[in-house]
């Protein structure tokens, strides 16, 4: 067992023998790159000039007035391509280029990671194939078209539940076949080592900026840092630079779908049973035979039965509290943010917002919450409309 690949009992490299040398070479290249100042200079250049960083830590004045504690939103929604996903994609594609790879593949759920990968591939002149569940292709039509406009080939995956889980299976299959010239850009803090670590390093910029910004604005650290969790990439990036701070508390918000008690949800943590999927050992939704259960959430980006291994570890060590909110709570929070602040958030990010509203009720006014607003909601307008089914939004 390679201890470096684990977070406590979670993580590892549960992949076929055909991918082991590939993982070793990715790990080697990654470890070398992150010690190379030139690599970071290039990464930072693209973060600033292309992605548009740094993005604001916005003080949500009207939310604060209504809910009590000071609420700050880290505006990842203002990044190029509309979400935090691009941070990681630029990092991984720079690494792929460094390794001499000419092709990239990726899985996508909501389509944000697919769009980000297609964007990065266009920027660096790489051939790009995106695997996406057939059901998600329907839910996120606009993002599919975006990827195609950016020159990517979108493969519709019809196996299993036709969502992110199955798109990831298919990407792994394609990777095992083509690893000799292809780099797999994993979009969340999941997968075999070193992916969870890489994704954290390339998303760390979120929390690093937020920390400096809150210190500048408030002269102190926040009481809470909150982010939504599907696989857990925006949350691990948001938490990373705060984790060593004694007095900061952390909340990860999973999707409770129709409610944990209905069984139709995407909360890997709520069920608390570890398993192995997509190359990693982590908490996983499973049935009585150890088959992976289909997750349910209104959010395609959180509709994933597992969670990144470091999150599983942070849960067990009680460093982070993991909670969940339902589809309904999420949509209410989404509309609230639209109306009070003029920001249309992604459905994923609205899960974090919903929990912020819940927790704020019991908090003193002088406390500070920093929340990661991981993406914008343009892609979700259809989903919200059909959820509300013409219900009057102005009542």
């Amino acid at each position, binding site marked *: *067992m*390679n201890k470096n*690949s684990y977070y406590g009992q979670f993580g*590892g*490299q*549960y*992949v*076929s*023998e*055909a991918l*082991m*040398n*590939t993982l070793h070479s990715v790990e080697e290249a990654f470890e070398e790159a992150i010690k190379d100042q030139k690599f970071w200079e290039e990464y930072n250049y693209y973060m600033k000039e292309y992605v548009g960083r740094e993005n604001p830590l916005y003080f949500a004045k009207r939310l604060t007035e209504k809910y009590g504690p000071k609420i700050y939103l880290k505006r990842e929604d203002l990044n190029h391509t509309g979400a935090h996903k691009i941070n990681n994609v630029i990092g991984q594609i720079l690494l792929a280029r460094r390794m001499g790879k000419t092709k990239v593949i990726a899985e996508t759920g909501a389509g944000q990671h697919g769009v980000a990968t297609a964007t990065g591939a266009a920027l660096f002149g790489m051939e790009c194939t995106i695997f996406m569940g057939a059901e998600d292709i329907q839910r996120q039509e606009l993002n599919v078209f975006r990827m195609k406009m950016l020159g990517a080939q979108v493969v519709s995956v019809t*196996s*299993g539940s036709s969502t992110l*889980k*199955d798109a990831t*299976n298919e990407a*792994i*299959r*394609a990777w*095992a*076949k*083509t*690893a*000799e010239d292809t780099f797999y850009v994993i979009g969340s803090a999941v997968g075999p080592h070193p992916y969870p670590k890489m994704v954290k390093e390339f998303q760390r910029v979120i929390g690093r900026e937020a920390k400096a910004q809150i210190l500048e604005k408030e002269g102190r650290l926040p009481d809470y840092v909150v982010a939504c969790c599907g696989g857990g990439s925006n949350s691990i990036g948001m938490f990373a630079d705060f984790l060593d701070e004694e007095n900061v508390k952390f909340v990860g918000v999973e999707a409770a779908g129709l409610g944990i008690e209905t069984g139709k949800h995407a909360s890997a943590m709520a069920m608390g*049973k*570890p*398993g*192995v*999927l*997509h*190359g990693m*050992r982590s908490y*996983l939704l*499973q049935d009585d*035979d*150890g*088959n*992976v259960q289909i997750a349910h959430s209104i959010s395609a980006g959180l509709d994933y039965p597992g969670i990144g291994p470091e999150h599983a570890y942070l849960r067990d060590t009680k460093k982070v509290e993991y909670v969940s909110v339902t589809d309904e709570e999420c949509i209410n929070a989404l509309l609230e943010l639209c109306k009070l602040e003029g920001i249309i958030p992604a459905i994923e990010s609205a899960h974090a917002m919903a929990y912020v509203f819940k927790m704020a009720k019991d908090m003193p006014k002088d406390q500070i919450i920093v929340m990661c607003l991981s993406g914008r909601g343009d892609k979700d307008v259809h989903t919200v409309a059909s959820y509300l089914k013409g219900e009057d939004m102005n009542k």
Partner: protein
Amino acid sequence: MNRIEEKLKALKSKGKKAFITYMTAGLPDMERMKQIICAQEEAGTDIIELGIPFSDPVADGPVIQSASRRAIEQGVNLSGTFQAVEELRGDCQIPIVFMMYYNTILYYGVEKFVDKCIACGVDGLIVPDLPYEEQDEIKAFLGKEDAPILIPLVSPVSAQRIPMLLEGARGFVYCVSSMGVTGQAADFHKNVSNYLQNVKKYSHIPIMMGFGIRTPQDVQGYKEIVDGAIVGSHFIKMMEENQYNIDKIKEYIKSFKAGF
């Protein structure tokens, strides 16, 4: 002695190659699966790989994926397959290898799983998502008497890993002959000959070739190197096309054996 080792020893002394098939457990149903296993033993199959269905079979191509899905829909699971193997063992001694994903073992409980294999007469395990680096947990229990053998898998890109993978290995070496998943056409990896020779050089046990094999002709060029061939997806397709007709299955096995 383990049934796999016994069988391979007998084949070696006769100078014969091994013929190994793969079938998904519980198809078309448990009773007929048992009949097919017995018929295979009669027809000359040397070792049977029994696939335990899993929801996310990442090492498998479309044929085995869909077989796996159908089996799950019919309620096939690990406990039921154990029971079937146990029932078979009275009059059928063909070596049986479970091909399965690690989560199924983990969920069942690793030690409990090994004990059940011993009790039911499962002779070997192939776990495609459990590479060498992650095997310590299960190996802790594989030293028990009559425990199944964990079959080492080697890929065309294993290169410098081969000696490590084969050290202390038992049973046979499963040489994956093409990149990717099971059941693609027999377009083997471009350096497959060199690769197989390299495995042979380091191996003190028989080496078998699998992934994408349909007919004896597919392995013709490698006969001097390998000790046997594994037919999976094609075998499943053939059974489906013939409505699991026992005579047709026997016919296929006999003709493959004869041509091999």
